[in-house]
């Protein structure tokens, strides 16, 4: 059975000018131990998708669809059962560790709290385990770290603390919301390596939200590309890089800076990202898509599954050959002219 299965999850947020739709039917599944990357621009709904799993979406949000955790719908759980899920089965690592910890309490309090107050372990056991966890995420001076207040530690150290706390309950599923975005580059790779190792050691599945396609490719088994509140393509990193099937994925790949070629100007995707609530029928990406045809503005494409991958594009079949190939910026890159247009 899949650890996690999202089935047509929609999220609407009431606002003064009527309801705003943030998720327009997200469906995905996660096998035990699998890492799935959720990639997309800001506002595409990737974090919001993550939050529907632990039911931490903004107050007043209306969520429909099913979120099955080991076959059980977390959206219908009672308060006590939900708290148990949060304490034991699913943990979340958020973007900014500095905001995740109470600034006036010591690190030891944060770690012990998750074991003692959330899971009912004894104080001694919780403290012993907390120290052990810190050592395992590569913190050398455990005593000093335990006694520190958050403002006395660096961002990288704090994120290690958060990771230690997240893997403490050996959850079935880890939700990581851009866990390295707030860190500087050298710390990023360290923290990512620790996270990845902890995940593999404990056999946890991971839903990894990032806007960094490269990072997602490095740590994830599959990648789901999101645009305007829906998934437009799911594939393995290899498939995505070799032959993206959705124009948006192609353009995302092209807009990365190349390490080898020195670009005068980075290609950008024309237009601005569309919010989910702005979409009015037809393909959400049609307005920015160089390959769009009149019918793209009219007909809404469905997520079509085909040989282990899925694409939401009316022209996926005809464009397959054109979208595949090396990214723009290298000679012979297909679609290069369209991107720059």
């Amino acid at each position, binding site marked *: 059975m899949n650890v996690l299965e999202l089935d047509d999850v929609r999220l609407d947020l009431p606002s003064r000018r009527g309801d705003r739709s943030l998720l327009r039917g997200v469906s995905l599944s996660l096998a035990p131990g699998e890492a799935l990357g959720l990639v997309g621009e800001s506002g595409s709904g990737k974090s919001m998708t993550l939050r529907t799993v*632990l039911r*931490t979406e903004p107050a007043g949000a209306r969520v429909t669809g099913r979120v099955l955790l080991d076959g059980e719908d977390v959206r219908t759980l009672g308060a006590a059962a939900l*708290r*148990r*899920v*949060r*304490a*034991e089965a699913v*943990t*979340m690592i*958020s973007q*900014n560790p500095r*905001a*995740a*910890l*109470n*600034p*006036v*309490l*010591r690190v030891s309090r944060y770690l012990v*709290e*998750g074991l003692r*107050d*959330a*899971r009912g372990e004894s104080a001694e056991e919780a403290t012993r385990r907390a120290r052990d966890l810190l050592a395992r995420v590569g913190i050398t001076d455990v005593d000093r770290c335990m006694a520190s*207040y958050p*403002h006395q530690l660096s961002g990288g150290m704090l994120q290690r603390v958060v990771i230690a*706390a997240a893997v403490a309950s050996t959850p079935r599923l880890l939700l990581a919301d851009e866990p390295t975005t707030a860190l500087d580059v050298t710390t990023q790779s360290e923290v990512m390596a620790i996270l990845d190792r902890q995940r593999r050691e404990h056999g946890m599945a991971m839903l990894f939200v990032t806007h960094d396609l490269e990072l997602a490719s490095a740590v994830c088994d599959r990648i789901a590309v999101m645009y305007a509140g829906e998934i437009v393509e799911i594939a393995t990193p290899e498939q995505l890089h070799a032959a993206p099937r959705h124009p948006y994925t192609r353009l995302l790949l092209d807009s990365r800076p190349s390490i080898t070629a020195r670009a005068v100007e980075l290609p950008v995707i024309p237009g601005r990202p569309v919010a989910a609530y702005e979409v009015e029928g037809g393909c959400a990406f049609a307005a920015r898509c160089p390959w769009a045809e009149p019918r793209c503005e009219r007909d809404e494409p469905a997520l079509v599954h085909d040989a282990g991958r899925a694409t939401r594009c009316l022209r996926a079949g005809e464009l397959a050959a054109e979208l595949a190939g090396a990214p723009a910026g290298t000679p012979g890159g297909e679609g290069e002219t369209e991107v720059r247009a």
Partner: protein
Amino acid sequence: MLRFVLRRLGALAATLLISSFLVFSAMYAAPGTPESFLVQGRTVSPEVLASIRAQYGLDDPFLIRYWNWLGGVLTGDLGESLTTRQDVASLLASRIPTTLWLTLYAAVLIVVFGVVAGALAGLRGGAFDTGVLLGSSVGFAVPTFFAAVLLMSVFSVTLGWFPVFGAGSGFAGRVEHLTLPAVALALPAAAVVARITRTAVVEEREAEHVSVALARGVPWRVVARRHILRNAMLPVTTIVGVNIAALVAGAAVVEHAFTLDGVGAMLINSVQQKDFAVVQAVALLLVAVFGVVNLVIDILYAVIDPRVQLGGESA
């Protein structure tokens, strides 16, 4: 920590010194002279006037007079009341217990009703929240003197639950006599404290670490106590401290209204009678109380917020 306290005590001493000068000179800048009060409107010969001036040292240069007064204050001699010829220090000592009782009672009311009501309003929301908001607006808007009169007419005169005047003796007597004055005194401050507590709690509820704690499965009761209330108490401590310190000054109005024999009533009387020695002593006492309360709050703040670097430690 010790160095921090010592430094703050030094600052307090400097504040007192400066305010003592201001207090002393303000009395002489005010219209009317003490000797004109002493003769009480009678026509006296210039010789008598001169002897009075000599007796009270009024002919000495200003700085000399200040220096003499300051020397007296530092040795515990606050001078002699011009009206009663009594020692100001012992006069003050007899008045302090009532005012102390009144302000401590009011301080307890502020903490209990202001902080508790505000915290519950912030945590619960809904009708209780609206009630607290409404109540605090009313409490803040009603002038203390009017509140005193209103409380007296309702609870003392009409219902007869509390005595109309006097400060009472013994614990039960004090509580009985000082309940209405303390309520009148605490009302505006409790209203402000309730409102600020509520805002602080609501703000803290929105903090990311609170939703993170909940998302980790920490029970709501623990989150409310450890993460919301504890953090919200930081701004609340400051505002409670300032309000309690201000009570000592506010007590004057209430003591006057309830005819209590406290320091505040004494201040009003001596100002009216131009009893210089008493006014100076009381004013200095008010400044000292304000300074000490603020010092206590600062130390408390450093204890509850680890991010506050005490001056002595960071150096």
